[in-house]
């Protein structure tokens, strides 16, 4: 699993945030794919990839981050893709999130974001 073969899936309903995260990671040599909600993200996980990491926002329309995690964990084909939560919520409810790799609290800075991605990609 490496940055040459695998992509980072960036899931956030805010277009500006998606674009900036993707830009920063692309400049560091990572491949990125963006999704605007949990539904799109599940679709991409199942039919795209391979992915080394999902950067997951929680509060999103259509399908939120918690629901995304429940469906991801229920689907053996995609359950193992590591997930890092990136959220503006102060203390998000972790009970429904399952085994995530960590949480980045918005506003996230460059070093923290890069550190999280480097650990998995």
């Amino acid at each position, binding site marked *: 699993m490496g940055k040459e073969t695998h992509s980072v899936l960036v899931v956030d*309903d*805010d*277009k*500006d*945030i998606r*674009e*900036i*995260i993707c*830009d*920063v990671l692309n*400049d560091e040599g990572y491949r990125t794919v963006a999704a605007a909600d949990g539904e799109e993200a599940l679709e991409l996980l199942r039919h795209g990839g391979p992915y080394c990491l999902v950067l997951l926002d*929680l*509060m*999103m*329309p*259509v399908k*939120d981050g*918690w629901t995304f995690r429940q469906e991801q964990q229920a689907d053996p084909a995609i359950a193992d893709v590591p997930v890092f939560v990136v959220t*503006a*919520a*102060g203390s998000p409810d972790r009970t429904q999130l399952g085994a995530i790799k960590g949480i980045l609290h*918005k*506003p*996230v*800075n*460059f*070093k923290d*974001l*890069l550190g999280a991605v480097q650990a998995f990609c």
Partner: protein
Amino acid sequence: MTQLVSRHAPSLLDVVEAGRDGVLERWVARFLQRTGRLREDLSPEIQRAGAVLTRMGAALRQQPSAKGQGDVDVSLPGLALMTLRDAVFEAADSAGASLSARDVMAVNRVIDEALVANQAPPDVPLEQDQRSRQQLHALLEQLPVAVVIVEAPSGLVLLTNRQSRLLFGSRATPGALHETLYDGWTEGSPPAESPKPLARSLGTGELVQGELIKVRRDDGTFAYLRANSGPIRDGSGNMVAAIGIYDDVTAERQHEDALRFLADATALLASSLDYETTLRNLAGLAVPHLADWCAVEMAKADGSSEQLALAHLDPKKLEFAEELRRRYPPDPAVDTGVPRILRTGEAELYEYIPEAMILAAAKDEDHLRILRELGLRSALAVPIRAGGHVLGVLSLVSDEGGRHYSKTDLTITQEIADRAGQAIENAALYRDAQSAIRTREDFLSVASHELRTPLMALNLQVSTFIARSEAGQTPDISLEKMKRLYAQVLRMTTLVNQLLDVSQLATGTLALSCTNLDLGALAKDVIERFSDTAADARSALSLSVTGSTTGFWDRGRLEQVVTNLISNALKYAAGTPIAVRVEDDGGAARLSVADQGPGIALVDQERIFERFERAAPVRSFGGLGLGLWIVKQIVSSHGGSISVESAPGEGSRFIVQLPKQRKTREADGHGQRDALRPRGR
């Protein structure tokens, strides 16, 4: 005629004097029967009974000196004297004698005097003895407590006074058995296990002091008596009688009960903010000390009432009452009782429930029968008030407990109801305060989330720039990236402005700077700014303007109105076409923004214009929950209105109606700032 009567009908004197031996014989037979003694042993008593009859004769002849025959021994047991009196009246009856009231009183007086004489020390001079007896009689009659003296060991009542006759009625008669004096028992003990105080004194010589007994009066109501009793002994220490003294403490006891209820109720009301449970417990507290029935009825919005609590000691009676209420539900239109109190807030007191009231309340024969069976005696009902409104009614009713409510009871019960009202009001204030705190916390959480999003974009861009510069790399500072950064700055500015608006509007003022402007043109400008966002949301944004849409408005504020409505539509109805229309409506301009999104349920349609409210779940959609509230405040400040037409699954249409000229001109029309109090807040 008088002579005829006197010839054919003997007088009581005739019977006593002429038929003396017959009377004595009759007495001996009865007395032996009652005591089980032998005739041979009775000669001294027969002699003394004869002496009593001699006195009786003198009394019937109205000789004042009748009592002065002190040398004659009349010391007979009380039972013997009572039996002698019975024998005299029986003999008179069988002789067909005419009995005048005066004659009957004379006989009774002699017997009473003999009873008292038997208790007097034998060596007291006659004059003094007579005086003492008169004084004792006067004292007993005037005493504010009931006094009963019974003979030992027979238990026959020898002497009563005025208070005892008032308290025990016809049963307080000399010669009666003291056991039948009253039906009652010691408070706090089962009736069967508490012999009456007087019986205990009589049986064992016990001295009873201040024992509280509960007795049933002739009319079925209860009285509380403070009882004292003890033995009366002769010179040799033998018990010859027992005395019982009874103080009627019913009123005092009822007042104590009421005060205890007030204290307990106050503690109860202060103990919890859950007023429904509290009021149920309150009803339980009133029963049985203050009432046999206690009900709490709460007013409903439609003018009717609902029974929150009903208490009675007997569960069967409760079931009965519930069944009664099901069969004959209360009529909210009646002009008495709970419905009237709910309307007027005036308390009602029925010291006695009149038959007419039961007749008026009965809806049919069966109902009347049931109401009569309930045996309701007295009732009072008071309003439970808070903040100038009648919230409910607290009712107390007595049935077999026999209490009759007084104005004092009404005052105390009203005091409890007022405290209950205060408790309900406090609970409501507490709930409101809790809700306000929750709303504020939710809002702070949402506001923090909203501010973090643009801050995240800025932070990431700037920290990347710094990290790369420090690493000796050339950071990308293209115009495109700078524009993106700037967009985040604008986004934060908008959020901060909204927060400032909240603060300004919360204090009740919104500064307007009005000029003549065209709403159609303004809408066109705003829509152009949304072209990129609309494209991202895959929504087609259209505008149609008809007629003259120029008015005297605040440009910045109206831009905010159009912006908030369009950005809401793009947020909640992304992917559907959004149609903005600006139309001339005579003296007003109408702006509408329609989408084909998920729509808003009817229950949410009012709420969405409130501060910090939203119809969509916060997990799915960001935003401060302020947009529509701010729109409403701005529109109201311009004298206009906003409404929504929507149904789930059928999209939403927000309609803003803005008068072209404000009715009250407060600005000079050249952009001078003025302040208006927003309506509806």
